[in-house]
């Protein structure tokens, strides 16, 4: 990938230091070292309350591939996506409290009829990470975080396509939750623990909670103001 080229390292490093807050700077390391170094610094800042250390290592390594740190700047790790997901695991969403969860379950119903498993997101992560680690161990005799970026991507593609056979949760289902929650952590308001430094919104030009565009409605021009969060942080 492009960020591994030497000239891109300096570029991304320079971009990192431009206009980004203290949180982001702690993660400003060379792309090759991002996974291990950042996970160490992030671990110091945030202690997971749901994920075990093993699971936490997987979440950090996997989300760093789903939204990588590259020449366009920060990725999932710098945005605090692992923290976001861990915090979400303690929400009513992750406990399935807003879903209809009465039996009988029909896990083989057509996919057009929607989610039909008896697992809630907490179960999907717990069982999914365990199965993912077993799958990687069997093939590569290493844990996921010890693989090169390219091999990690290949493993994630096996989960995404459902090619990887997991016992208790379909690998495709596990991957879809991981990807969806990773995007949420990159793009939702920092009040939920992700999108630190508003890096997700800055990347795409979303102005966040500004929520008043009366004088820009009919202008075919780029919106000029940087994003702002619910708590008043600016990107």
């Amino acid at each position: 990938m492009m960020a591994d080229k030497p000239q891109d390292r300096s570029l991304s490093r320079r971009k990192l230091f431009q206009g980004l807050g203290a949180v982001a700077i702690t993660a400003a390391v060379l792309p090759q070292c991002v996974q291990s170094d950042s996970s160490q610094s992030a671990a110091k800042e945030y202690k997971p309350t749901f994920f075990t250390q093993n699971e936490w290592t997987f979440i950090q390594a996997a989300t760093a591939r789903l939204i990588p740190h590259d020449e366009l700047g920060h990725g999932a790790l710098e945005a605090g996506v692992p923290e976001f997901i861990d915090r979400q695991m303690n929400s009513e969403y992750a406990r399935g409290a807003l879903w209809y969860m009465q039996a009988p379950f029909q896990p083989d119903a057509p996919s057009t009829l929607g989610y039909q498993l008896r697992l809630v997101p907490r179960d999907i992560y717990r069982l999914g990470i365990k199965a993912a680690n077993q799958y990687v161990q069997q093939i590569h005799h290493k844990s996921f975080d010890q693989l090169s970026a390219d091999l990690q991507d290949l493993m994630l593609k096996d989960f995404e396509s459902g090619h990887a056979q997991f016992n208790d949760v379909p690998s495709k289902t596990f991957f879809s939750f991981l990807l969806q929650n990773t995007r949420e952590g990159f793009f939702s308001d920092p009040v939920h623990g992700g999108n630190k430094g508003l890096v997700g919104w800055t990347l795409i030009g979303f102005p966040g909670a500004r929520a008043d565009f009366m004088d820009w409605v009919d202008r075919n021009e780029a919106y000029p103001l940087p994003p702002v969060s619910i708590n008043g942080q600016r990107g």
Partner: protein
Amino acid sequence: MVASLKKTNVVVVGFGWAGAIMAKELADAGLNVVALERGVMRDTATDGAYPTSIDELTYNVRKKLFLNLSRETVSIRHTITDTASPYRVLGAFLPGEGVGGAGLHWSGVHFRVDPIELRLKSHYTEKYGAQIIPNGMTIQDFGVSYEELEPYFDFAEKVFGTSGSAWSVKGQVVGNQRIEGSFGGNFFSPDRSSEFPLAAQKNTVSAQLWGKAAESLGYHPYNMPSANTSGPYTNPYGCQMGPCNFCGFCSGYACYNYSKASPNVNILPALRLLPNFELRPQCHVLKVNLSEDKKTATGVTYIDPKGQEVFQPADIVIISMFQFNNVRMMLLSGIGQPYDPVTNTGVVGKNFAYQNMATIKAYFDKDVHANPFIGAGGNGIAIDDFNADNFDHSQVGFVGGSPFWVNQAGVKPVSGISLPAGIPAWGSAWKKGVADYYAHTISMDCHGAHQSYRDNYLDLDPTYRDAYGQPLLRMTFDWQDNDIKMNQFMVGKMQGIAQAMNPKSISISGKKVGDHFDTVSYQTTHMNGGAIMGTDRQTSALNRYLQSWDVHNVFVPGASAFPQGLGYNPTGLIAALSYWSAHTIRDKYLKNPGPLV
């Protein structure tokens, strides 16, 4: 032992738009009105407070204002021989819950109706011959005309503070004015008795570019009627609204700015002041109680917030819940004969219909600034050249029509970013994709009408129960040939407009032959039918005043009364029919309670 409360004149079950309108109009007539809402109390000051209300994760993604499925949902199957599965996680449709119902979190697209859609079967039969209606299609006439409803459309717009451009008022064409960025009224719309209460809103860059492309092809673009205010407004009830500032947090949110019409902003503040009105949230109605001869309702039984079962006696019962809950309440209470698709008998549950959507995304270079975060839920530019029967149906092979539009309602980063084909879903290429395309994508919709069929219907599920032990409603529903044909025709026409905008590329989301109803991805929450109105008690559950044919003191307003789906969004017609029904109760029923037909 069920506790019995003091009798009231009217009990309203469900406090969304229909419930709020009925409650206000009947309380204004001097009746004592009790409204029961299964969900929690909701208001702008609490649920719409800036800036915590501007939070995509909490509202759009975790769906805070929508139905909590853990307590009740529906089950769904595609055909009559399948086993239904519960709708366990919200997807294709998002019913409301709580005070304001879906009227609190809707977008604000506020149409009337194309007059021919109120007499769809008669119109098609007269113009094209009965053979144009395919076997198994069960479209009917509403039994009420546009002319009869016009005063109520007019009043509802004044209550909602609707912004728009009229085409003709009292026979005079007024809407053919084109000013910079504005496209005037809808050439195809029927006559009106007055202008919109507010002028049309500004138009986004996306809508303007699309409108110009549509015009270049000879179509007739117009400003969409929007229940988002173009200026400050006070409605006939004395409720006040502030000007919409295009914040883009409409659908799925309680408008922090008092700019989007809702029962909470436009009706409840006035209703609260009336001593003869009482609103009881968190009261879950189990059934409508009937007299021994089953000809009248005696009141309703509900579970109060403590969990106690109570009986509320009433002279008149208004069932004004979400579309499918109205049908379920009738089935649970034994009001009307349940529909059986095998014998084609019965009426409650028949003619369940939806919306036949397709979407095209057009992707542009960085010189086109769609700024998709700017938006208002009801705002946009539309054409009706392919809506209703505004084009010749004799050779197209389907029944129905579709408005097209760019309705930029505020695109959010978690749920709203669409990418051209070929860009992966994650990794650096995805990241580059979202950076390149988020601000430079224009989305347009065919908002097609959906017809009713003998095999698409609602009944009670034999297996699944809600949190109170009552059977869930079961939907038996799938797309039919007519739907697929229409969808493909509309996509072809809209694709021409998309190409006329000269995008880098487009992506199309439409229906293919063999596609089944997909409950996972959001389509619309515009569900219709199941407790339909009409002129014949053999083929409809309600008469033309929304009164039950069988139990004369039960009235059932809502989209459940539509015999088939409209091209437009349903809220405008729901509101007008509710006013029509309420005024008939006031003017006729109260003087002589009994069947109105």
